């Protein structure tokens, strides 16, 4: 499946990107809030090597810049 977003080869880079976005949007407002992140990263664990990615949203450009497109293997049993 083609994904537009931000791709990271190691997990810490994805965590750092997530924290940058959180800081920009002031999330969380309170530690007791349900909302703890603005965006989360996902793991492409069927790909070799495994990588990490954040799916694009308009709100991310201001922090993470322009996205790229890349392929992610999604388990898809049947259609």
């Amino acid at each position: 499946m083609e994904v537009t977003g931000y791709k990271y080869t190691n997990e810490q880079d994805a965590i750092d990107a997530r924290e940058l976005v959180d800081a920009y949007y002031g999330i969380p407002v309170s530690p007791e809030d349900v909302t703890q992140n603005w965006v989360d990263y996902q793991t492409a664990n069927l790909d070799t090597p495994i990588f990490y990615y954040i799916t694009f949203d308009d709100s991310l450009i201001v922090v993470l810049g322009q996205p790229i497109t890349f392929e992610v293997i999604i388990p898809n049993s049947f259609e």
Partner: protein
Amino acid sequence: MANANGWGDGASNNNIGWGKGADNAIGWGDIHADSYAGLTDIVGAPSFVGLLDTYSGASAAFSLRKLRTAYTGSAIRVRRSSDNAEQDFGFVANVLDTASLLTFCGVGNGFVTTWYDQSGNGYNASTSTALNQPQVVASGAVIVENSKPSVKFDGSNDKLTGTTITGLGSTSFSVFTLSSGLSQAGTYAGLLNIGAVSTGMIISRSINNTGFALLQKNDVIITSAGTAPATGYLPKLFTATKEINVISRLFLNGVASTTSTAAAMIGTFTDANFDIGRTLSYALTLNGNIQEMVVYPTHQPTNRANIETNINTFYSAY
């Protein structure tokens, strides 16, 4: 002539006067405030009876109307776009307190962080990620369908997650979902997802088959083509039931549709966390709205039609 009965004798000279009425067990105090048959009953206002009062035993129940008299919790928790603050919102007159919701959100947007389970079992559905939160207020207006509040999933990344509904995979079930769809491409877009398609159970919009689907353990049954067009559709009530080891059935707007007795479709599935609005195996979220979803650990052989009528009476979907 004055006597012990006071007003009664003075006004009508009988024994059923005001004084006697006030002194007995059916006096004003009982009628106005103390009795169950209080003033609202006297003037004819209906008392509240929720869906789950009449048809109890739900495993999980999500709605923007109150479903159970004894439920004292909130309907949803909302994050507002202006400053990302959060607040719970309950019910006024047994429907979502939209006035308070709009006061909180102002001219901005409101996103659902938590959709509370009204069943009493605590299977609240929530997400800690802002971009995954479905929307309930847009630019200072409550999102509605058929004039009733609705939760909008964006078809991109919105989903709400809850913990495993214990035992649902090994029993009969029925799931009642009132939802609408916007234009969308792909395969199966989640309404209710439990685990992977190879081991779990999914109730979804089948986009490429233009219907609604029940998937279980790599098998599927779908309502007739055209019942849920890929281009979009207004709110419809989709019911999926499984009588364990006997038959799975689909109903659309109360009308019987596809059935299956295939082993994969009637057997057990593996319990897992659930998602509202996304299918895990297809990584596809619903582009559409959900107004109510009720899950029972029974196939409701007697009450299914009555439950559907109850939902439709409120939402006027068909």
